[in-house]
Protein backbone atom coordinates (compact mmCIF):
# COMPACT_ATOMS: atom_id res chain seq x y z
CA UNK A 1 0.00 0.00 0.00
CA UNK A 2 1.17 3.54 -0.72
CA UNK A 3 2.38 5.59 2.23
CA UNK A 4 1.41 9.23 2.16
CA UNK A 5 4.40 10.34 4.24
CA UNK A 6 6.76 12.46 2.10
CA UNK A 7 10.09 10.68 2.49
CA UNK A 8 11.48 10.15 -1.04
CA UNK A 9 14.13 12.38 -2.67
CA UNK A 10 15.27 13.28 -6.19
CA UNK A 11 17.07 9.95 -6.73
CA UNK A 12 13.84 8.08 -5.91
CA UNK A 13 11.91 10.43 -8.21
CA UNK A 14 14.33 9.66 -11.05
CA UNK A 15 14.05 5.91 -10.43
CA UNK A 16 10.25 6.24 -10.37
CA UNK A 17 10.30 8.04 -13.72
CA UNK A 18 12.79 5.69 -15.35
CA UNK A 19 11.20 2.51 -13.95
CA UNK A 20 7.93 3.69 -15.48
CA UNK A 21 9.56 4.53 -18.81
CA UNK A 22 11.96 1.61 -19.28
CA UNK A 23 9.49 -1.17 -19.76
CA UNK A 24 8.53 -4.09 -21.93
CA UNK A 25 7.47 -1.85 -24.84
CA UNK A 26 10.97 -1.69 -26.32
CA UNK A 27 10.99 -5.49 -26.58
CA UNK A 28 8.00 -5.49 -28.89
CA UNK A 29 7.24 -2.13 -30.51
CA UNK A 30 10.55 -1.84 -32.40
CA UNK A 31 9.61 -4.90 -34.46
CA UNK A 32 6.61 -3.67 -36.44
CA UNK A 33 7.98 -0.11 -36.61
CA UNK A 34 11.24 -1.34 -38.13
CA UNK A 35 10.01 -3.95 -40.59
CA UNK A 36 6.69 -2.42 -41.68
CA UNK A 37 6.76 1.33 -41.10
CA UNK A 38 10.06 3.16 -41.00
CA UNK A 39 13.04 0.84 -41.51
CA UNK A 40 16.17 2.22 -39.87
CA UNK A 41 14.42 5.60 -39.64
CA UNK A 42 12.99 4.28 -36.38
CA UNK A 43 15.96 6.17 -34.93
CA UNK A 44 14.48 9.42 -36.28
CA UNK A 45 10.99 8.34 -35.20
CA UNK A 46 12.21 7.67 -31.64
CA UNK A 47 13.93 11.04 -31.50
CA UNK A 48 10.73 12.70 -32.68
CA UNK A 49 8.63 10.75 -30.16
CA UNK A 50 11.02 11.72 -27.36
CA UNK A 51 10.83 15.42 -28.24
CA UNK A 52 7.03 15.39 -28.57
CA UNK A 53 6.85 13.61 -25.22
CA UNK A 54 9.05 16.32 -23.73
CA UNK A 55 6.51 19.02 -24.76
CA UNK A 56 3.79 17.40 -22.65
CA UNK A 57 6.21 16.53 -19.85
CA UNK A 58 6.68 20.29 -19.27
CA UNK A 59 2.95 20.51 -18.55
CA UNK A 60 3.23 17.49 -16.23
CA UNK A 61 6.12 19.25 -14.43
CA UNK A 62 4.14 22.43 -13.81
CA UNK A 63 0.95 20.66 -12.75
CA UNK A 64 2.73 17.94 -10.74
CA UNK A 65 4.77 20.52 -8.82
CA UNK A 66 1.72 22.71 -8.16
CA UNK A 67 -0.59 19.81 -7.21
CA UNK A 68 1.56 16.96 -5.84
CA UNK A 69 -1.45 14.91 -4.82
CA UNK A 70 -2.70 11.36 -5.32
CA UNK A 71 -4.53 11.00 -8.64
CA UNK A 72 -2.08 12.63 -11.07
CA UNK A 73 -3.70 13.63 -14.38
CA UNK A 74 -7.20 12.93 -13.08
CA UNK A 75 -6.69 15.54 -10.33
CA UNK A 76 -5.28 18.18 -12.73
CA UNK A 77 -8.07 17.75 -15.27
CA UNK A 78 -10.72 17.72 -12.55
CA UNK A 79 -9.37 20.97 -11.07
CA UNK A 80 -9.30 22.59 -14.53
CA UNK A 81 -12.52 21.34 -16.10
CA UNK A 82 -14.60 19.68 -13.38
CA UNK A 83 -16.20 16.27 -13.21
CA UNK A 84 -17.34 15.34 -16.72
CA UNK A 85 -14.01 15.89 -18.55
CA UNK A 86 -12.15 14.35 -15.61
CA UNK A 87 -14.40 11.29 -15.89
CA UNK A 88 -13.59 10.99 -19.61
CA UNK A 89 -9.85 11.37 -18.96
CA UNK A 90 -10.05 8.83 -16.13
CA UNK A 91 -11.75 6.35 -18.44
CA UNK A 92 -9.07 6.77 -21.12
CA UNK A 93 -6.26 6.53 -18.58
CA UNK A 94 -7.91 3.34 -17.31
CA UNK A 95 -8.25 1.99 -20.85
CA UNK A 96 -4.60 2.81 -21.61
CA UNK A 97 -3.56 0.80 -18.53
CA UNK A 98 -5.79 -2.11 -19.55
CA UNK A 99 -4.45 -2.13 -23.14
CA UNK A 100 -0.86 -1.88 -21.85
CA UNK A 101 -1.46 -4.78 -19.45
CA UNK A 102 -2.94 -6.90 -22.26
CA UNK A 103 0.00 -6.07 -24.50
CA UNK A 104 2.43 -7.01 -21.69
CA UNK A 105 0.71 -10.38 -21.27
CA UNK A 106 0.93 -11.16 -25.00
CA UNK A 107 4.58 -10.02 -25.21
CA UNK A 108 5.42 -12.18 -22.18
CA UNK A 109 4.21 -15.23 -24.11
CA UNK A 110 6.17 -14.11 -27.19
CA UNK A 111 9.36 -13.84 -25.12
CA UNK A 112 8.64 -17.19 -23.46
CA UNK A 113 8.28 -18.82 -26.90
CA UNK A 114 11.57 -17.23 -27.99
CA UNK A 115 13.32 -18.46 -24.83
CA UNK A 116 12.09 -22.00 -25.45
CA UNK A 117 13.17 -21.78 -29.10
CA UNK A 118 16.75 -21.57 -27.75
CA UNK A 119 16.68 -23.74 -24.63
CA UNK A 120 13.95 -26.28 -25.45
CA UNK A 121 12.78 -26.14 -29.10
CA UNK A 122 10.32 -29.01 -28.54
CA UNK A 123 8.23 -26.87 -26.15
CA UNK A 124 8.35 -23.73 -28.35
CA UNK A 125 5.65 -24.86 -30.79
CA UNK A 126 3.25 -25.53 -27.89
CA UNK A 127 3.89 -22.05 -26.41
CA UNK A 128 3.47 -20.40 -29.84
CA UNK A 129 0.15 -22.11 -30.56
CA UNK A 130 -1.29 -21.50 -27.08
CA UNK A 131 -0.39 -17.79 -26.85
CA UNK A 132 -3.88 -16.50 -25.85
CA UNK A 133 -4.30 -19.19 -23.20
CA UNK A 134 -0.86 -18.57 -21.65
CA UNK A 135 -1.46 -14.79 -21.74
CA UNK A 136 -4.78 -15.28 -19.91
CA UNK A 137 -3.12 -17.51 -17.28
CA UNK A 138 -0.34 -14.92 -16.75
CA UNK A 139 -2.94 -12.15 -16.22
CA UNK A 140 -4.89 -14.29 -13.73
CA UNK A 141 -1.75 -15.18 -11.74
CA UNK A 142 -0.61 -11.52 -11.67
CA UNK A 143 -4.10 -10.36 -10.67
CA UNK A 144 -4.12 -12.90 -7.82
CA UNK A 145 -0.69 -11.74 -6.62
CA UNK A 146 -1.86 -8.12 -6.88
CA UNK A 147 -4.86 -8.97 -4.70
CA UNK A 148 -2.47 -10.56 -2.20
CA UNK A 149 -0.51 -7.29 -2.16
CA UNK A 150 2.77 -8.48 -3.75
CA UNK A 151 5.72 -6.07 -3.55
CA UNK A 152 7.05 -4.31 -6.67
CA UNK A 153 10.70 -4.46 -7.72
CA UNK A 154 10.78 -1.41 -10.01
CA UNK A 155 14.08 0.10 -8.78
CA UNK A 156 16.04 -3.16 -9.22
CA UNK A 157 14.61 -3.62 -12.71
CA UNK A 158 15.73 -0.13 -13.80
CA UNK A 159 19.34 -0.74 -12.76
CA UNK A 160 19.44 -4.22 -14.34
CA UNK A 161 17.88 -2.99 -17.60
CA UNK A 162 20.21 -0.05 -17.97
CA UNK A 163 23.12 -2.46 -17.40
CA UNK A 164 22.01 -4.99 -20.06
CA UNK A 165 21.12 -2.23 -22.54
CA UNK A 166 24.60 -0.76 -21.96
CA UNK A 167 26.13 -4.20 -22.67
CA UNK A 168 24.13 -4.47 -25.92
CA UNK A 169 25.06 -0.96 -27.08
CA UNK A 170 28.75 -1.41 -26.16
CA UNK A 171 28.89 -4.84 -27.87
CA UNK A 172 27.22 -3.39 -30.97
CA UNK A 173 29.65 -0.51 -31.16
CA UNK A 174 32.65 -2.80 -30.48
CA UNK A 175 31.36 -5.01 -33.30
CA UNK A 176 32.21 -2.10 -35.57
CA UNK A 177 28.80 -0.59 -36.39
CA UNK A 178 29.18 2.70 -38.19
CA UNK A 179 26.51 5.32 -38.88
CA UNK A 180 26.66 4.48 -42.59
CA UNK A 181 25.34 1.00 -41.91
CA UNK A 182 22.18 2.30 -40.27
CA UNK A 183 21.43 5.23 -42.54
CA UNK A 184 17.99 4.80 -44.15
CA UNK A 185 18.38 3.02 -47.46
CA UNK A 186 14.78 2.11 -48.03
CA UNK A 187 11.72 3.31 -46.12
CA UNK A 188 8.84 0.80 -46.26
CA UNK A 189 6.22 3.61 -46.16
CA UNK A 190 8.23 6.77 -46.90
CA UNK A 191 8.16 9.75 -44.51
CA UNK A 192 4.59 9.00 -43.53
CA UNK A 193 5.92 5.70 -42.22
CA UNK A 194 8.27 7.63 -39.93
CA UNK A 195 5.33 9.51 -38.41
CA UNK A 196 3.31 6.31 -38.07
CA UNK A 197 6.30 4.69 -36.34
CA UNK A 198 6.48 7.71 -34.02
CA UNK A 199 2.89 7.10 -32.94
CA UNK A 200 3.29 3.36 -32.74
CA UNK A 201 6.40 3.58 -30.54
CA UNK A 202 5.05 6.44 -28.42
CA UNK A 203 3.96 4.11 -25.54
CA UNK A 204 7.69 3.56 -24.89
CA UNK A 205 7.73 7.06 -23.36
CA UNK A 206 4.40 7.13 -21.55
CA UNK A 207 5.52 5.30 -18.43
CA UNK A 208 7.50 8.17 -16.93
CA UNK A 209 4.31 9.93 -15.90
CA UNK A 210 4.16 7.22 -13.18
CA UNK A 211 6.23 9.78 -11.31
CA UNK A 212 3.29 12.17 -10.95
CA UNK A 213 1.21 9.31 -9.54
CA UNK A 214 3.85 8.94 -6.82
CA UNK A 215 4.33 12.70 -6.31
CA UNK A 216 2.47 12.49 -2.99
CA UNK A 217 5.44 10.51 -1.58
CA UNK A 218 8.18 12.96 -2.60
CA UNK A 219 9.95 15.43 -0.34
CA UNK A 220 10.03 18.97 -1.72
CA UNK A 221 7.76 18.08 -4.68
CA UNK A 222 8.02 21.60 -6.11
CA UNK A 223 11.66 20.85 -6.97
CA UNK A 224 11.82 17.03 -7.19
CA UNK A 225 8.79 16.42 -9.43
CA UNK A 226 9.91 18.66 -12.34
CA UNK A 227 13.57 17.60 -12.01
CA UNK A 228 12.65 13.90 -11.89
CA UNK A 229 10.32 14.16 -14.90
CA UNK A 230 12.68 16.21 -17.06
CA UNK A 231 15.75 14.09 -16.23
CA UNK A 232 13.82 10.87 -17.02
CA UNK A 233 12.44 12.37 -20.26
CA UNK A 234 15.89 13.49 -21.38
CA UNK A 235 17.78 10.35 -20.32
CA UNK A 236 15.38 7.96 -22.00
CA UNK A 237 15.87 9.50 -25.47
CA UNK A 238 19.59 8.59 -25.92
CA UNK A 239 18.99 5.15 -24.33
CA UNK A 240 16.22 4.23 -26.81
CA UNK A 241 17.93 5.86 -29.80
CA UNK A 242 21.16 3.93 -29.09
CA UNK A 243 19.31 0.62 -28.78
CA UNK A 244 17.45 1.26 -32.06
CA UNK A 245 20.76 2.21 -33.69
CA UNK A 246 22.36 -1.09 -32.67
CA UNK A 247 19.29 -3.20 -33.58
CA UNK A 248 18.92 -1.54 -37.00
CA UNK A 249 22.64 -1.93 -37.66
CA UNK A 250 22.77 -5.62 -36.74
CA UNK A 251 19.60 -6.72 -38.56
CA UNK A 252 19.57 -5.21 -42.07
CA UNK A 253 16.12 -4.40 -43.43
CA UNK A 254 16.93 -6.13 -46.71
CA UNK A 255 17.14 -9.47 -44.87
CA UNK A 256 14.08 -11.62 -44.44
CA UNK A 257 12.23 -10.69 -41.24
CA UNK A 258 13.47 -13.04 -38.51
CA UNK A 259 10.97 -15.14 -36.56
CA UNK A 260 12.36 -13.75 -33.29
CA UNK A 261 11.51 -10.25 -31.96
CA UNK A 262 13.94 -7.64 -33.34
CA UNK A 263 15.72 -6.82 -30.07
CA UNK A 264 16.15 -10.49 -29.12
CA UNK A 265 17.43 -11.30 -32.59
CA UNK A 266 19.91 -8.40 -32.48
CA UNK A 267 21.15 -9.53 -29.02
CA UNK A 268 21.51 -13.09 -30.33
CA UNK A 269 23.48 -11.86 -33.35
CA UNK A 270 25.84 -9.81 -31.17
CA UNK A 271 26.23 -11.99 -28.07
CA UNK A 272 25.21 -15.43 -29.32
CA UNK A 273 22.58 -17.65 -27.64
CA UNK A 274 23.49 -16.18 -24.24
CA UNK A 275 22.44 -12.73 -25.49
CA UNK A 276 19.15 -14.10 -26.80
CA UNK A 277 18.40 -15.84 -23.50
CA UNK A 278 19.41 -12.75 -21.47
CA UNK A 279 17.07 -10.48 -23.44
CA UNK A 280 14.24 -13.03 -23.38
CA UNK A 281 14.45 -13.23 -19.56
CA UNK A 282 14.75 -9.44 -19.32
CA UNK A 283 11.72 -9.08 -21.60
CA UNK A 284 9.68 -11.49 -19.50
CA UNK A 285 10.61 -9.73 -16.24
CA UNK A 286 9.73 -6.36 -17.81
CA UNK A 287 6.37 -7.72 -18.95
CA UNK A 288 5.51 -9.11 -15.52
CA UNK A 289 6.53 -5.86 -13.85
CA UNK A 290 4.51 -3.77 -16.34
CA UNK A 291 1.52 -6.08 -16.04
CA UNK A 292 1.54 -5.82 -12.24
CA UNK A 293 1.93 -2.04 -12.37
CA UNK A 294 -0.83 -1.62 -14.96
CA UNK A 295 -3.24 -3.74 -12.91
CA UNK A 296 -2.50 -1.60 -9.84
CA UNK A 297 -2.83 1.66 -11.81
CA UNK A 298 -6.14 0.68 -13.41
CA UNK A 299 -7.56 -0.31 -10.01
CA UNK A 300 -6.37 2.98 -8.51
CA UNK A 301 -8.09 4.98 -11.30
CA UNK A 302 -11.28 2.94 -11.02
CA UNK A 303 -11.37 3.51 -7.25
CA UNK A 304 -10.78 7.25 -7.73
CA UNK A 305 -13.76 7.51 -10.07
CA UNK A 306 -15.81 5.30 -7.78
CA UNK A 307 -14.95 7.58 -4.82
CA UNK A 308 -16.20 10.55 -6.87
CA UNK A 309 -19.49 8.77 -7.60
CA UNK A 310 -18.95 8.03 -11.31
CA UNK A 311 -18.58 4.28 -10.90
CA UNK A 312 -20.29 1.84 -8.48
CA UNK A 313 -19.12 2.04 -4.84
CA UNK A 314 -18.45 -1.70 -4.84
CA UNK A 315 -15.14 -0.94 -6.60
CA UNK A 316 -13.91 0.61 -3.33
CA UNK A 317 -14.22 -2.73 -1.49
CA UNK A 318 -11.04 -3.80 0.30
CA UNK A 319 -10.13 -7.45 0.86
CA UNK A 320 -10.54 -8.33 4.56
CA UNK A 321 -7.38 -10.43 4.76
CA UNK A 322 -4.99 -8.78 2.28
CA UNK A 323 -6.19 -5.17 2.54
CA UNK A 324 -6.14 -4.74 -1.27
CA UNK A 325 -8.87 -3.44 -3.64
CA UNK A 326 -9.81 -6.89 -4.93
CA UNK A 327 -13.04 -5.91 -6.72
CA UNK A 328 -11.33 -3.15 -8.76
CA UNK A 329 -8.37 -5.43 -9.57
CA UNK A 330 -10.64 -8.33 -10.57
CA UNK A 331 -12.90 -6.15 -12.73
CA UNK A 332 -9.98 -4.62 -14.64
CA UNK A 333 -8.30 -8.03 -14.96
CA UNK A 334 -11.36 -9.43 -16.74
CA UNK A 335 -10.96 -6.77 -19.45
CA UNK A 336 -7.21 -7.44 -19.63
CA UNK A 337 -7.96 -11.16 -20.09
CA UNK A 338 -10.37 -10.34 -22.92
CA UNK A 339 -7.94 -8.05 -24.76
CA UNK A 340 -4.90 -10.27 -24.20
CA UNK A 341 -6.80 -13.21 -25.69
CA UNK A 342 -7.12 -11.19 -28.94
CA UNK A 343 -3.34 -11.64 -29.27
CA UNK A 344 -3.09 -8.66 -31.70
CA UNK A 345 0.15 -6.91 -30.72
CA UNK A 346 -0.04 -4.16 -33.37
CA UNK A 347 -3.66 -3.31 -32.49
CA UNK A 348 -2.91 -3.18 -28.74
CA UNK A 349 0.18 -1.01 -29.38
CA UNK A 350 -1.85 1.59 -31.23
CA UNK A 351 -4.80 1.35 -28.81
CA UNK A 352 -2.57 2.02 -25.76
CA UNK A 353 -0.98 4.92 -27.64
CA UNK A 354 -4.29 6.51 -28.69
CA UNK A 355 -5.81 6.34 -25.21
CA UNK A 356 -2.71 7.98 -23.69
CA UNK A 357 -2.52 10.66 -26.40
CA UNK A 358 -6.05 11.79 -25.53
CA UNK A 359 -4.97 12.12 -21.87
CA UNK A 360 -1.83 14.03 -22.98
CA UNK A 361 -3.96 16.51 -24.96
CA UNK A 362 -6.28 16.97 -21.95
CA UNK A 363 -3.33 17.56 -19.58
CA UNK A 364 -1.95 20.30 -21.88
CA UNK A 365 -5.42 21.87 -22.14
CA UNK A 366 -5.72 21.75 -18.34
CA UNK A 367 -2.49 23.71 -18.00
CA UNK A 368 -3.82 26.42 -20.35
CA UNK A 369 -7.13 26.52 -18.52
CA UNK A 370 -5.59 26.69 -15.04
CA UNK A 371 -3.29 29.57 -16.02
CA UNK A 372 -6.48 31.50 -16.90
CA UNK A 373 -8.71 30.18 -14.13
CA UNK A 374 -6.21 30.26 -11.23
CA UNK A 375 -3.53 32.82 -12.12
CA UNK A 376 -2.42 33.20 -8.48
CA UNK A 377 -1.99 29.48 -7.78
CA UNK A 378 1.50 28.72 -6.43
CA UNK A 379 3.58 27.29 -9.28
CA UNK A 380 7.07 26.14 -8.19
CA UNK A 381 7.82 25.29 -11.84
CA UNK A 382 6.58 27.19 -14.89
CA UNK A 383 6.46 25.72 -18.39
CA UNK A 384 8.97 27.52 -20.64
CA UNK A 385 7.72 29.43 -23.71
CA UNK A 386 4.13 29.47 -22.42
CA UNK A 387 1.61 29.27 -24.14
CA UNK A 388 3.46 27.85 -27.17
CA UNK A 389 4.71 24.70 -25.40
CA UNK A 390 1.31 23.38 -24.17
CA UNK A 391 -0.38 24.45 -27.44
CA UNK A 392 2.28 22.54 -29.39
CA UNK A 393 1.68 19.61 -27.01
CA UNK A 394 -2.05 19.61 -27.82
CA UNK A 395 -1.48 19.94 -31.58
CA UNK A 396 1.13 17.16 -31.65
CA UNK A 397 -1.02 14.81 -29.53
CA UNK A 398 -4.02 15.28 -31.85
CA UNK A 399 -1.84 15.03 -34.97
CA UNK A 400 -0.29 11.78 -33.74
CA UNK A 401 -3.75 10.50 -32.92
CA UNK A 402 -5.09 10.86 -36.47
CA UNK A 403 -1.95 10.56 -38.59
CA UNK A 404 -1.58 6.73 -38.85
CA UNK A 405 -5.18 6.48 -40.09
CA UNK A 406 -4.31 8.69 -43.09
CA UNK A 407 -1.54 6.23 -43.81
CA UNK A 408 -4.25 3.57 -43.99
CA UNK A 409 -2.52 1.24 -41.52
CA UNK A 410 -5.21 -1.33 -40.83
CA UNK A 411 -4.12 -1.73 -37.17
CA UNK A 412 -4.23 2.03 -36.60
CA UNK A 413 -7.66 2.34 -38.24
CA UNK A 414 -8.94 -0.56 -36.14
CA UNK A 415 -7.56 0.99 -32.95
CA UNK A 416 -9.03 4.43 -33.77
CA UNK A 417 -12.43 2.94 -34.61
CA UNK A 418 -12.33 1.00 -31.35
CA UNK A 419 -11.39 4.27 -29.64
CA UNK A 420 -14.46 5.98 -31.12
CA UNK A 421 -16.62 3.04 -30.00
CA UNK A 422 -15.10 3.10 -26.51
CA UNK A 423 -15.66 6.88 -26.27
CA UNK A 424 -19.32 6.27 -27.07
CA UNK A 425 -19.36 3.58 -24.38
CA UNK A 426 -17.71 5.95 -21.87
CA UNK A 427 -20.28 8.69 -22.59
CA UNK A 428 -23.10 6.15 -22.34
CA UNK A 429 -21.73 4.92 -18.99
CA UNK A 430 -21.65 8.50 -17.69
CA UNK A 431 -25.20 9.12 -18.86
CA UNK A 432 -26.49 5.84 -17.43
CA UNK A 433 -24.71 6.44 -14.12
CA UNK A 434 -26.27 9.88 -13.85
CA UNK A 435 -29.80 8.66 -14.61
CA UNK A 436 -29.99 6.36 -11.55
CA UNK A 437 -30.25 2.65 -10.92
CA UNK A 438 -34.02 2.22 -11.27
CA UNK A 439 -34.18 3.79 -14.73
CA UNK A 440 -31.11 1.81 -15.75
CA UNK A 441 -32.78 -1.43 -14.64
CA UNK A 442 -35.84 -0.62 -16.78
CA UNK A 443 -33.61 0.26 -19.76
CA UNK A 444 -31.61 -2.99 -19.44
CA UNK A 445 -34.86 -4.94 -19.04
CA UNK A 446 -36.22 -3.40 -22.23
CA UNK A 447 -33.02 -4.14 -24.18
CA UNK A 448 -32.91 -7.77 -22.98
CA UNK A 449 -36.62 -8.19 -23.76
CA UNK A 450 -36.19 -6.87 -27.31
CA UNK A 451 -33.12 -9.01 -28.00
CA UNK A 452 -34.72 -12.16 -26.55
CA UNK A 453 -37.92 -11.78 -28.59
CA UNK A 454 -35.86 -11.24 -31.76
CA UNK A 455 -33.68 -14.26 -30.94
CA UNK A 456 -36.73 -16.46 -30.30
CA UNK A 457 -38.38 -15.30 -33.53
CA UNK A 458 -35.25 -15.91 -35.65
CA UNK A 459 -34.75 -19.35 -34.08
CA UNK A 460 -38.40 -20.24 -34.73
CA UNK A 461 -38.05 -19.17 -38.40
CA UNK A 462 -34.81 -21.17 -38.70
CA UNK A 463 -36.42 -24.26 -37.16
CA UNK A 464 -39.34 -23.89 -39.60
CA UNK A 465 -36.83 -23.77 -42.47
CA UNK A 466 -37.49 -20.19 -43.63
CA UNK A 467 -33.97 -18.94 -42.86
CA UNK A 468 -30.60 -20.58 -42.18
CA UNK A 469 -29.77 -21.19 -38.48
CA UNK A 470 -27.96 -18.33 -36.68
CA UNK A 471 -25.87 -20.63 -34.49
CA UNK A 472 -25.88 -23.97 -36.32
CA UNK A 473 -23.87 -25.76 -33.64
CA UNK A 474 -26.41 -25.00 -30.87
CA UNK A 475 -29.71 -26.93 -30.93
CA UNK A 476 -32.75 -24.73 -31.59
CA UNK A 477 -34.59 -25.79 -28.42
CA UNK A 478 -31.62 -24.65 -26.25
CA UNK A 479 -31.78 -21.17 -27.83
CA UNK A 480 -35.57 -21.09 -27.31
CA UNK A 481 -35.21 -21.99 -23.60
CA UNK A 482 -32.56 -19.27 -23.13
CA UNK A 483 -34.80 -16.78 -24.98
CA UNK A 484 -37.76 -17.69 -22.76
CA UNK A 485 -35.74 -17.15 -19.55
CA UNK A 486 -34.42 -13.86 -20.91
CA UNK A 487 -37.93 -12.70 -21.87
CA UNK A 488 -39.17 -13.35 -18.30
CA UNK A 489 -36.08 -11.54 -16.91
CA UNK A 490 -36.68 -8.64 -19.29
CA UNK A 491 -40.32 -8.32 -18.18
CA UNK A 492 -39.33 -8.49 -14.48
CA UNK A 493 -36.68 -5.79 -14.92
CA UNK A 494 -38.87 -3.54 -17.07
CA UNK A 495 -41.69 -3.69 -14.49
CA UNK A 496 -39.43 -3.25 -11.42
CA UNK A 497 -40.64 -0.79 -8.79
CA UNK A 498 -38.30 2.04 -7.81
Amino acid sequence: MLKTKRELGLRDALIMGLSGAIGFEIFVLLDYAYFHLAGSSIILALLLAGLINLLTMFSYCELGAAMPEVGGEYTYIKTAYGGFIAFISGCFRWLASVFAAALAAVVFTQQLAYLFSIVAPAVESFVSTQTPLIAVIVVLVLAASDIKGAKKIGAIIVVVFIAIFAILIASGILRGLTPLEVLPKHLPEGMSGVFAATVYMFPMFFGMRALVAGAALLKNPGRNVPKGILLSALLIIPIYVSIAYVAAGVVPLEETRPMAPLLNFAAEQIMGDAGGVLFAIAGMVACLSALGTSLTVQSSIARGMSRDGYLPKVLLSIHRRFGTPYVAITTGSLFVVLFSAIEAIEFLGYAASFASLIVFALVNLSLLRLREKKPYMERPFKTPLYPFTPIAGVIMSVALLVFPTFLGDVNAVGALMSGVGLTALVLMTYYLRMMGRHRLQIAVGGAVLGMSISLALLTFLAEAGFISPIFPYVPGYVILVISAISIIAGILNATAHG
Partner: protein
Amino acid sequence: MEVRRALTVIVGIVQSIIAILIVISACTLYFNFFDVQTLLNTAVEFSYVHLLALLVFGFLSIISGLFLVQEWLESR
Protein backbone atom coordinates in the same frame (compact mmCIF):
# COMPACT_ATOMS: atom_id res chain seq x y z
CA MET B 1 -45.92 -10.41 -4.46
CA GLU B 2 -44.29 -13.57 -3.04
CA VAL B 3 -44.51 -15.20 -6.48
CA ARG B 4 -42.71 -12.25 -8.03
CA ARG B 5 -40.00 -12.36 -5.36
CA ALA B 6 -39.41 -16.08 -5.89
CA LEU B 7 -39.46 -15.67 -9.67
CA THR B 8 -37.08 -12.71 -9.44
CA VAL B 9 -34.34 -14.59 -7.59
CA ILE B 10 -34.66 -17.83 -9.58
CA VAL B 11 -34.71 -16.11 -13.00
CA GLY B 12 -31.96 -13.69 -11.91
CA ILE B 13 -29.57 -16.47 -10.84
CA VAL B 14 -30.34 -18.72 -13.83
CA GLN B 15 -30.00 -15.84 -16.30
CA SER B 16 -26.67 -14.72 -14.81
CA ILE B 17 -25.23 -18.25 -14.92
CA ILE B 18 -26.39 -18.81 -18.51
CA ALA B 19 -25.02 -15.41 -19.55
CA ILE B 20 -21.60 -16.10 -17.98
CA LEU B 21 -21.52 -19.46 -19.79
CA ILE B 22 -22.46 -17.73 -23.07
CA VAL B 23 -19.59 -15.22 -22.70
CA ILE B 24 -17.06 -17.94 -21.79
CA SER B 25 -18.24 -20.20 -24.64
CA ALA B 26 -18.13 -17.33 -27.17
CA CYS B 27 -14.56 -16.43 -26.19
CA THR B 28 -13.48 -20.08 -26.14
CA LEU B 29 -14.92 -20.63 -29.62
CA TYR B 30 -13.62 -17.40 -31.13
CA PHE B 31 -10.10 -17.70 -29.75
CA ASN B 32 -10.11 -21.44 -30.34
CA PHE B 33 -8.96 -22.40 -26.85
CA PHE B 34 -8.21 -26.14 -26.62
CA ASP B 35 -8.79 -26.32 -30.40
CA VAL B 36 -12.58 -26.39 -29.89
CA GLN B 37 -13.29 -25.11 -33.41
CA THR B 38 -11.99 -28.37 -34.84
CA LEU B 39 -13.86 -30.40 -32.23
CA LEU B 40 -17.16 -28.66 -33.02
CA ASN B 41 -16.34 -28.05 -36.68
CA THR B 42 -17.24 -24.36 -36.38
CA ALA B 43 -14.13 -22.69 -37.78
CA VAL B 44 -15.95 -21.22 -40.77
CA GLU B 45 -19.25 -20.30 -39.15
CA PHE B 46 -18.02 -18.59 -35.96
CA SER B 47 -17.14 -15.09 -37.05
CA TYR B 48 -16.33 -11.76 -35.39
CA VAL B 49 -20.01 -10.77 -35.73
CA HIS B 50 -21.07 -13.88 -33.79
CA LEU B 51 -18.62 -13.01 -31.02
CA LEU B 52 -19.82 -9.41 -30.84
CA ALA B 53 -23.51 -10.41 -30.81
CA LEU B 54 -22.97 -13.02 -28.10
CA LEU B 55 -20.85 -10.67 -25.97
CA VAL B 56 -23.45 -7.88 -26.13
CA PHE B 57 -26.26 -10.32 -25.33
CA GLY B 58 -24.14 -12.01 -22.63
CA PHE B 59 -23.08 -8.85 -20.80
CA LEU B 60 -26.58 -7.32 -20.95
CA SER B 61 -27.99 -10.58 -19.57
CA ILE B 62 -25.43 -10.63 -16.73
CA ILE B 63 -26.41 -7.06 -15.77
CA SER B 64 -30.11 -7.94 -16.07
CA GLY B 65 -29.68 -11.05 -13.87
CA LEU B 66 -27.69 -9.14 -11.26
CA PHE B 67 -30.37 -6.41 -11.13
CA LEU B 68 -32.96 -9.08 -10.36
CA VAL B 69 -30.82 -10.65 -7.64
CA GLN B 70 -30.18 -7.22 -6.12
CA GLU B 71 -33.92 -6.45 -6.20
CA TRP B 72 -34.57 -9.69 -4.32
CA LEU B 73 -31.85 -8.95 -1.75
CA GLU B 74 -33.32 -5.48 -1.10
CA SER B 75 -36.85 -6.85 -0.71
CA ARG B 76 -35.83 -9.34 2.04
